[in-house]
């Protein structure tokens, strides 16, 4: 990859590359700051804009939206006590009290500095870990791939929010949706019920936009809608001085490590990392009694960890083609739309593109500092917008996004039905990330299982004899399923 680094850098530092990074990061910050949009919806609604772009600018734009939106969530968390993204929920705990006592600029300064450091470290993790993991996975055949996807799915289900059973059911629903349409081996139509539009299967992005963005509109419509929020006085970001950092660097390093570690695990996500990091900081900080009353240590813990997750979450996505969460599932779908097959061969087949992605992701996190300072002042007035305006705009953007993927009116109907179905399921505690990830991984799971069985003359037991990696991965998958059951049993006992 080092041989092709000049070409990769040329992709980033060309006019288009730089414009995409600047615009994408700024837009990501604004979208992340708007409560109710969140990183997944932000990435999903920006997706249609990438369809007319080349591979590298399209992926860089979505990465910029992703990293920008995770940081942007801290703006509304601090200024109006409403996290723009779930990842910033822990930021409210100390950010809002600081804003209330007139230190909104300084609170955002701490959040921005911690986010930039967390994000940069996560970019390093992505650059170092993804090629190693992909190189290891190059030896995988269909049996190992099957076991790996099984492990990925169980990981995601067992650690996702809500009950294990509902998570599993959502994952299985996603696997089923992936089977609708032509059989990948024989080409025969399955579950199309005479509808020719279904022969190509459900459009993944129509389902993703439906279950995440449109269902969010309906959930918000079902709840008490916010009027224009009261925004704390804010005249721009004030960065903390070097001396103010003294005594806090250890906590920052610990938060970054927590975020990096959790990010690589499929399914856990930035919100979990932020809360774990916050709890650890409160336990270890010499200023623990100030937590919840505007303590910068709390802000650092939350923001460093949630941004440190971003690069880690991209490691299994890029290296193995297994998305770690809903956002990376959307990214994976986008890569596929642009003719890129994520997974073990991506690093060796497209070194220029991968180099651009790695270097671009580092640059995006570096840009968070100046852009955060500039854009947060513009984003603050937007927080006064009524929620109703945003909900209508999001619905229109959803329709535009789905229409542009294939130009097929049937996809619009799929999006609407997925939105209504997602709304009903989410209200009852069914997580949607396993559904989407099941749908993304379903075709590969099916093909690897069937190819494996053909290779072993139909013997499933042979999957584990002579395939130590598959055996290890399958045992890990079993353990991931057994762990929550064991915990539940211990609690009840």
């Amino acid at each position, binding site marked *: 990859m080092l041989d092709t680094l000049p070409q990769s850098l040329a992709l980033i530092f060309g006019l288009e590359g730089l414009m995409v990074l600047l615009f994408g990061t700024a837009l990501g910050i604004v979208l992340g700051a708007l409560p109710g949009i969140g990183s997944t919806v932000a990435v999903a609604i920006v997706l249609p804009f990438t369809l*007319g772009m080349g591979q590298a600018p399209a992926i860089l734009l979505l990465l910029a939206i992703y990293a920008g939106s995770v940081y942007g969530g801290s703006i509304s968390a601090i200024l109006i006590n409403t996290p723009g993204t779930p990842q910033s929920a822990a930021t409210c705990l100390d950010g809002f009290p600081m804003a209330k006592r007139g230190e909104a600029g300084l609170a955002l300064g701490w959040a921005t500095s911690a986010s930039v450091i967390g994000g940069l470290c996560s970019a390093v993790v992505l650059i170092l870990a993804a090629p190693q993991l992909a190189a290891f996975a190059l030896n995988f055949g269909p049996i190992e791939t099957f076991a790996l996807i099984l492990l990925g799915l169980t990981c995601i289900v067992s650690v996702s929010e809500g009950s294990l059973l509902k998570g599993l059911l959502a994952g299985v629903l996603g696997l089923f949706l992936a089977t609708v349409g032509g059989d990948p081996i024989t080409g025969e139509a399955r579950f199309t019920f005479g509808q020719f539009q279904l022969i190509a299967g459900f459009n993944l992005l129509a389902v993703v936009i439906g279950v995440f963005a449109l269902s969010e509109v309906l959930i918000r*419509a079902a709840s008490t809608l916010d009027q224009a929020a009261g925004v704390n006085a804010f005249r721009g970001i004030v960065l903390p001085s070097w001396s103010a950092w003294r005594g806090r660097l250890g906590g920052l390093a610990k938060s970054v490590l927590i975020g990096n570690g959790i990010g690589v695990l499929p399914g856990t996500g930035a919100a979990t990392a932020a809360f774990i990091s916050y709890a650890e900081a409160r336990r270890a900080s010499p200023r623990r009694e100030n937590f919840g009353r505007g303590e910068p240590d709390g802000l650092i813990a939350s923001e460093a960890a949630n941004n440190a997750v971003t690069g880690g979450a991209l490691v299994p996505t890029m290296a193995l083609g297994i998305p770690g969460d809903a956002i990376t599932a959307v990214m994976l779908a986008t890569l596929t739309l642009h003719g890129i097959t994520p997974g073990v061969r991506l690093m060796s087949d497209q070194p220029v593109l991968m180099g651009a992605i790695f270097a671009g992701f580092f640059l995006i996190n570096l840009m968070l500092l100046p852009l955060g300072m500039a854009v947060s002042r513009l984003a603050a007035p937007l927080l006064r917008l009524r929620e109703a305006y945003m909900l209508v705009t999001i619905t229109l953007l959803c329709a535009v996004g789905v229409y542009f993927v294939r130009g097929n009116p049937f996809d619009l109907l799929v999006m609407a039905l997925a939105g209504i179905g997602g709304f009903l399921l989410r209200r009852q505690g069914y997580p949607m990330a396993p559904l989407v990830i099941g749908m993304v991984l379903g075709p590969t799971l099916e093909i690897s299982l069937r190819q494996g069985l053909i290779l072993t003359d139909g013997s499933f037991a042979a999957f584990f004899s002579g395939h130590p990696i598959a055996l290890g991965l399958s045992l890990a998958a079993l353990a991931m399923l057994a762990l929550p059951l064991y915990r539940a049993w211990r609690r009840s006992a």
Partner: protein
Amino acid sequence: MVVSERALVALVLLLGGAGLAYTAYGSGGFADLGGAFSPMFFPRIVLAVWLALALVNLVLDLRQGAEGPTLPPLRAGLIAVAVLAYVQLLIPLGFFLASVAFAVVALPLLGVRNIPMIAALALAVPGALVALFNHTLAMPLPTSPFVWWL
């Protein structure tokens, strides 16, 4: 016994899975290929797991009784109907007109009572999107037989 919305959703999932499993296991129209070669091999496994999980899920949800959220408010239902109508009208009416109509219906449902604001937003957001996609990005949105000049 009061059946909660949660149990109702669980029941729909079970019945849906059962119906699909009936189709999958009873399908005779597929090429007679055995084992892993059969197009229904993988869906049958998935549906069997679906049925088992949905059954346990229903039992647990029924045991919980009427806990969980009550039926969604009428507003969410009306917005859902408006979204369904919108996606159906998007191609025949074109993006601009269908979006204006959707915004005019949805904004009052979402509590906006200021008529000039409804009119302004209903025209401005679709108009801005048409300007951006049709004229700046050269990615045309569905056109209307009535406002083709947009």
